[in-house]
């Protein structure tokens, strides 16, 4: 966007309910000062962060209260993951990683305004629709700004030779068809990963028959509650193997991302729950490595092995028919599809002990490779 486009306010906005509120009520500054520099002194660019109470809470108290504790707003699980891998540490180390978290990880938080009014700060903002509030923002300008590297590219088919997700390609769905407002705005205090979020989307909401033990399909009956839906219905996803962060000589934060691949790995579920009872899930490698924060504090992730580096994921590359579900033995006995110790770097072995599928845990090859009758 051109700089002026980012801050152009349309007459149409001024006619909306939000346009009836004086600019100064939300943004501060001096509305009577014709000098732009002094007029903008004390201006609050995003009045919805860190506390949306004044700007949004006056009219939307419930949404505002929940959203300010939501995963998108706080991205708290990232801080918890860093703390787990850091372990007990001296105050200077903790302070250094806090700086790193603020400078890098926290740049991806999403406030009310950064979803409903402008693009996220992470992509340098800019109004979505000339300051007109968007009840349901467009996924291309809002979700993709932060999730463009992996999930959005997978969902819309931007990865080489990987089909777009059928929900996008065939059903013409958008992110918001599954990730609705009640999920986005749900408070998430104490949640350690987004998988623990009570309101995350579930396949069975729209496909109750497929996830039923009484399903008409034999494959669904056999794998019921043992295998996550994506194990059979997802294609390869982006795997990232290492990211360093730091601050350059000009004081600007930088990321150095190492190798990425498109791959598909099935791992064991290290902590089954009634909500996610599966033995097998699809796993993704996040970009963290022991040296990720070395610029800020060398060797700070002393307990790197406390958390797996192959994480259960929800690939957005869903197809009804995939390579692995076209014949039983495409999975059964197929070592290459399952996470093996040979897939791990030395520093990852301990961290992924509960995720690796050992040879004796591999589903055995079936004598009759024909799919059971539906």
């Amino acid at each position, binding site marked *: 966007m*051109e*700089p*002026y486009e980012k*801050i*152009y*306010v*349309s*007459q149409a906005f*001024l006619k909306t309910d939000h346009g009836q509120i*004086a*600019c*100064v009520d939300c*943004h501060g*500054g001096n*509305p*009577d*000062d*014709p000098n*732009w*520099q002094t*007029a903008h002194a004390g201006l609050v660019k995003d009045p919805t962060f860190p506390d949306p109470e004044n700007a949004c809470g006056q009219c939307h108290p419930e949404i505002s209260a929940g959203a300010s504790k939501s995963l998108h707003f706080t991205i708290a699980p990232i801080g918890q993951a860093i703390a787990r891998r850091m372990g007990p540490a001296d105050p200077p180390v903790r302070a250094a990683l806090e700086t790193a978290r603020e400078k890098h990880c926290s740049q991806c938080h999403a406030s009310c305004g950064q979803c409903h009014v402008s693009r996220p700060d992470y992509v*340098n903002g800019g109004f979505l629709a000339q*300051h007109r509030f968007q009840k349901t923002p467009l996924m291309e300008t809002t979700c993709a700004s932060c999730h463009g*590297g992996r999930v959005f590219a997978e969902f819309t088919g931007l990865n080489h030779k990987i089909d777009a997700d059928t929900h996008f390609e065939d059903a013409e769905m958008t992110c918001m068809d599954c990730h609705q407002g009640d999920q986005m705005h749900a408070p998430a205090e104490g949640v350690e990963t987004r998988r623990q979020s009570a309101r995350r989307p579930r396949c069975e909401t729209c496909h109750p028959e497929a996830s039923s033990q009484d399903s008409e399909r034999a494959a669904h009956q056999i794998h019921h509650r043992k295998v996550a839906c994506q194990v059979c219905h997802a294609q390869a996803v982006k795997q*990232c193997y290492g*990211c360093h962060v*730091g601050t*350059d000589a*000009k004081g*600007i*934060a*930088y*990321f*150095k*991302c*190492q190798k*990425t691949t498109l791959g598909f790995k099935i791992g064991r579920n290290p902590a089954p729950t009634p909500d996610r009872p599966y033995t097998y899930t699809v796993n993704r490698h996040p970009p963290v490595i022991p040296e990720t924060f070395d610029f800020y504090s060398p060797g700070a992730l002393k307990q790197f092995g406390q958390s797996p580096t192959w994480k259960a994921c929800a690939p957005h590359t869903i197809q009804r028919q995939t390579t692995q579900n076209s014949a039983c033995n495409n999975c059964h006995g197929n070592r290459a599809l399952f996470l093996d110790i040979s897939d791990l770097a030395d520093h990852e072995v301990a961290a992924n002990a509960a995720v690796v599928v050992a040879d004796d845990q591999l589903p055995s090859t079936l004598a009759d490779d024909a799919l059971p009758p539906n």
Partner: protein
Amino acid sequence: MQKAGLSGWAPLFAFGVLSFASPLVGQEAPTSTCVQCHTDVKKLIRLSWEVEKVRGKPRLSAENEGEG
């Protein structure tokens, strides 16, 4: 009857007098400097050049590497 007829015209007469007397009638409500600038593309383009002179262009680090 006559009195009643005159009193019926009185509100209309009063409205007419007040309309001419009020400087706001027939004009747009005053707008803040914020609105005047942020709804004017030409002004914003000119101001964006000034802002760039003062603050510089938003920069990315030259040390970024790989896919984000």
